[in-house]
């Protein structure tokens, strides 16, 4: 930590920092333990059924965060820039989900043309929604790189960051103008109707595990694992890692750097699109601002897990989701303050592990 600071600051600040960190950590830790004992042991505020519900909700939202966080991490790993328009890429995926199901709802099939296509063939409908949603988002990510980031490849590191923020605002406003500022509700097929799910009985109270939630969780796990294999085992993955390590040498070795970067944006866009479709299916409501909050949260998750680190982003996403959902209840704090807990945790983690939970995967070039 100290090595990265300019020498003069490091010398002056070293003593303060040496004591400040443990003290800060101890204060927060004591507070957390005190509140935990209060809610869990003394007051016994909630029964096991409530805890189960909270953890389920956290895992579902966490898996969506993880999918989006992967996009941040992939792009950061290869270009060392934060693609702040990533949440908007996800928002376009969610809009595609809305439009697909709206269209399929209005295609009538069956003997008397009364059955909606999305209810008659739900599996096909969902596959169509995912393919289209992922393609739209992948294409957006791809074009975004071409228009907003590639011309600035040689510019100082701050410049593409500003360009990314601009792209984010542009996409939000374009969506508002094109699709109207109203909230849209995704018309789910009946088998994935909101609120339906497996019911298990805990303490005589039925806990629902929503189908959309399980579906979201499993699908994001599958996508994340397959991405990990692509990066680690395939030729393209090797090219990607090589470009991340050193662009010049990689191009000397015959790797098409531009193509690799484009493909990285395609993949991160597709994952964001999948997250958007899941968001539409599980949370139903889509509007132009949909991508902003999940985008910020996923960025947090990526930093929490160690940016540039794929398993770190997955872990960070799930961790953040569960903390957000369980944290206020466990600490006996108002639920409105869930973001405070999440970001306080981010500060604590970064204070003790500045490179995130699993550590930042640093390329030589950056150090």
């Amino acid at each position, binding site marked *: 930590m100290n090595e990265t600071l300019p020498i003069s600051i490091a010398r002056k600040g070293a003593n303060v920092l040496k004591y400040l960190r443990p003290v800060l950590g101890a204060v927060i830790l004591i507070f957390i333990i005190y509140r935990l004992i209060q809610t869990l042991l003394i007051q016994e505020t909630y029964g096991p059924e409530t805890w189960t519900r909270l953890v389920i909700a956290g895992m579902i939202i966490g898996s969506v965060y993880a999918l989006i966080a992967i996009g941040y991490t992939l792009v950061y790993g290869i270009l060392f820039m934060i693609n702040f328009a990533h949440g908007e890429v996800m928002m376009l995926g969610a809009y595609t989900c809305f439009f697909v199901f709206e269209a399929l709802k209005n295609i009538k099939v069956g003997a008397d043309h009364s059955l909606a296509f999305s209810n008659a063939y739900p599996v096909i409908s969902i596959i169509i929604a995912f393919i289209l949603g992922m393609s739209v988002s992948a294409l957006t990510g791809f074009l975004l790189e071409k228009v907003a980031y590639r011309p600035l490849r040689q510019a100082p590191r701050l410049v593409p960051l500003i360009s990314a923020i601009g792209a984010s605002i542009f996409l939000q406003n374009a969506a508002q*103008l094109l699709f109207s500022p109203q*909230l849209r*509700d995704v018309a789910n097929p009946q088998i994935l109707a909101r609120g339906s799910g497996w019911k298990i009985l805990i303490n005589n109270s039925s806990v629902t595990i929503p189908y959309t939630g399980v579906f979201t969780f499993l699908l994001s796990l599958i996508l994340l694992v397959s991405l990990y294999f692509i990066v680690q085992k395939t030729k393209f993955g090797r090219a990607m890692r090589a470009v991340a390590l050193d662009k010049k040498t990689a191009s000397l070795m015959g790797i098409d750097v531009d193509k690799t970067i484009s493909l990285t944006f395609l993949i991160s866009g597709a994952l964001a699109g999948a997250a958007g479709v899941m968001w539409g299916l599980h949370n139903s409501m889509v509007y132009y601002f949909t991508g902003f909050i999940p985008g910020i949260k996923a960025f947090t998750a990526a930093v929490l897990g160690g940016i540039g680190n794929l398993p770190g982003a997955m872990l960070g996403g799930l961790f953040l989701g569960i903390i957000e959902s369980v944290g206020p209840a466990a600490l006996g704090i108002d639920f409105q303050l869930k973001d405070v807990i999440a970001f306080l945790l981010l500060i604590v983690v970064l204070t003790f592990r500045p490179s995130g939970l699993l550590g930042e995967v640093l390329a030589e070039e950056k150090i």
Partner: protein
Amino acid sequence: MKAARIFVVLMFMFMMMTACNAAPAAAEPNGTGSVPEVSGSDSAAASSDAAAGSPEICSTDAFGCAVFKPGDVVKIGMGAPMTGGDASYGFDISQGGTIAVQDSGEFEGFKFVLVVEDDGGNAEGGAAVANKFASDPALVAVAGHIYSGATSAAIPIYEKAGIVMLSPSASLPSLTTLGSAVFNRIVFTDARQGPPAAEYLFNKLNVRRLAVLHDGSDYGKGLAETVAAKFTELGGEVVITEAITKGETDYTPVLSAVASKNPEAVYFGGYTAEGAVIVNQMKQTGLENAIFFGDDGTYGADFLSRTGANGEGAFATIAPIPADSPEKAAFDAAYLEQFGKEPGTLSPYTWNGYDAVSGLIFAIKSVAVVGKDGNLYVPRGALINAVRNLTDFHGISGTYTCDAVGECNTLPPTFVMVKDGAWVPAP
């Protein structure tokens, strides 16, 4: 490579163009798309040519006169949520107001126009819109704002500028109790909305364990507190009070915590966007048997379409639906023809929107003077008094007489519930 770059640039331009084309279409429903350009005469210009034909009242009026040259348009403002999850309220009420402008006709050859600005329903937006309105010399009155949070931020600004307000729907009690000279409203205050809701829950629905949720807004929190206080006073138990974060789509954690207290009913102070999410997620968090009881902010067609079957049996308190009259029939027909929807389906305040705007125009007509030079003079201070002294004004939803603090409506709320996918009067 070059071709690819040109293609990208063309795509970009195409996107820009479609975005530009869509802009007027999006703005159309609020009726501002076709507003004629107003050459608002600013006060400096007014004072210079005032010597020619300005009536005497302008020199004695506390806020002076708004001056309109022949051909100018008298503007009435409305700050309303036109974007986001609660936009149906803004659209509905401003559409009601648009019809009022059409019905009110001209005054000595001067036309009226309703200018609708998006305040997002929140305090920041309310203040921004109020500043914009206050800097427009042709704007003499504001029919709004629609939401209490935006309204309370806007009042001090209008107070300084001497612009009179008549809100169709801002029901926060403190809006009138803090001694504002310019603010008036034709909706009940939440001091009248909350207690009857608590009594209904306790007496009619036999609820003894109530959970109270609110969205943290001035309106939602204030209303929730009123209900909780009255419910406790009646002998019921408020088992949990929780605030939610506005604008989210996942409230399962907070609802799980609510479910652990086994309430028989959930009262929610807030708006449709969050109310609909709560109703949906109550079914998966162990609150499937609890009654959802909302307010005048959770009513409307959007609530029905977003909750579907989950919304069955939900309650809300709304302003009374006006009794049938020839005026109501004429308005309903005009609204249906122009906007393709039955009035009262998007929000309960369609008729209030009409009444607020027509009430303001009535007041403007009563104080406006045409000077010797043919200009129209609207004394702002006299207009403020005229609205506060509105007596027996016949609107569609009732007869309004404003009291000393600006409460122009004393009707209590009525109760509605969702039955077979529609809002019907509750038994």
